[in-house]
């Protein structure tokens, strides 16, 4: 795969990252546990991208965070705030619409390619 294709794939994933992150924060998670959770479900995110993203989302009012000193070391936990929950619902609907549209487009392409139309 050449570099430009790789870049396009990265961009595609990047566009879905906020939705993926928000979807996993209905329960509070700290940075590392969130990264693990996403990785287990097939979303590999660079750590240097994920942790600053959490702060940006918090600054936008979508997430709330607090330090917890329970456990072996202090950890910052993030969870969806009220605005974040509303945004997540909106993004989910948008994603389903987008997914349907793209499925139709890609399905049409596949049919074209197989000569069924």
């Amino acid at each position, binding site marked *: 795969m050449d570099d430009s294709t790789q870049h396009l794939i990265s961009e595609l994933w990047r566009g879905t990252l906020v939705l993926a992150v928000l979807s996993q924060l209905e329960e509070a998670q*700290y*940075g590392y546990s969130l990264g693990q959770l996403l990785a287990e479900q097939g979303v590999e995110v660079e*750590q*240097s991208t994920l942790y600053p993203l959490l702060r940006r989302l918090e600054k936008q009012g979508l997430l709330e965070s607090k330090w917890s*000193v329970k456990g072996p070391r202090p950890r910052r936990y993030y969870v969806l705030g009220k605005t974040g929950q509303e945004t997540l619902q909106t993004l989910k609907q948008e994603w389903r619409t987008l997914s349907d549209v793209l499925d139709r487009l890609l399905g049409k392409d596949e049919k074209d390619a197989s000569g069924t139309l």
Partner: protein
Amino acid sequence: MPVELFDRYVHQVGRRLPRKLRADVEAELHSLLMDTLQGRTVEGETENEAAIEADQIAILEEFGPPAKVAAQYQPPRRYVIGPRVFDIYLIVVAAVAGSITLVCLLLLALTMLGETEPLSALASSFGDMFGVYLGWLLSSFGSVTLTFAILERVLPEATFDIEDEEEWDPRTLPEIEDPTRVEVGGCVIETSVLVIALIAFNFFPQWVGIGFVGSIDDSPARWHLIPIMSPTFFTAYLPLLNALWILSIGLNVVLLRQGQWQRLTRLADCVLTACGAFILYRMVTGPPILTMQAVTPESLRQTLDSILPTLLKVALVIGLVSSIGETLHKLYLVFRGPSRAVPGFSNQAADL
């Protein structure tokens, strides 16, 4: 478990961030690095320092160079000089300031070479040259900053790329300088000098003067020591200096015992520096502190009388200006406060 490499990494990220973000991001980043390390460390490996260091290096390589991580935490374009060019900017500013200093010193030296009385020439041109030096410094600093601010905004993202990840080696991270650590050597030297000054000025004032080996009035060459401090110095200034020196020695003793700067000792240091500036101001504006009455022969007295007071005044003014600057800097250090604001966080993370 040794996590010093993480501390150095976190420090390098933090120093590139705005102060209000720094403590919180540093604490979280440290916690995340420790979590990642814990997730990777195989049971029973926690005692193997070489294996742990290898894990740390691998983790830091995945996180990427400190400048890159710091850039991710920055709000977009809210700075004059951004993290991708900041290191180069510092190098250029230091190089330009060094070059200007060198050029000014050379010009000063050339001024002296062309004169029959170099010391007098130095005294008279120093003030002018200092003004020129400051002007050049300020204007070049402004030009460099403006240039980098423009470069930051007009160059494509790829230009001046922060650091090639493939070339970045976490083992090259610089050591952390602890700003609260007391410099023992400096404290001991300063205390020794102050004790010597106290003894010399109070108990052996006749030793304070100009010493040289030579002949006076056709007598055989021998060691001469000519006292030059005026009676006013001993009555008007020495009591103030004694109080300042004794208090400074006391502060140094406290610092050496504590080993770390605290807010109270910083405040005391700031007050003492301000008192030093006040005494210097009195010396600059008050009665003369030197007298050449004991100097013989007459020709030498006249020469010294024409040079020394001027040189001393220049030195006192420089000392006064630098004392005022130092006082302001120390005042900033007093009110800057601790940078860690996260409960339970310390740079030395808990063991796995």
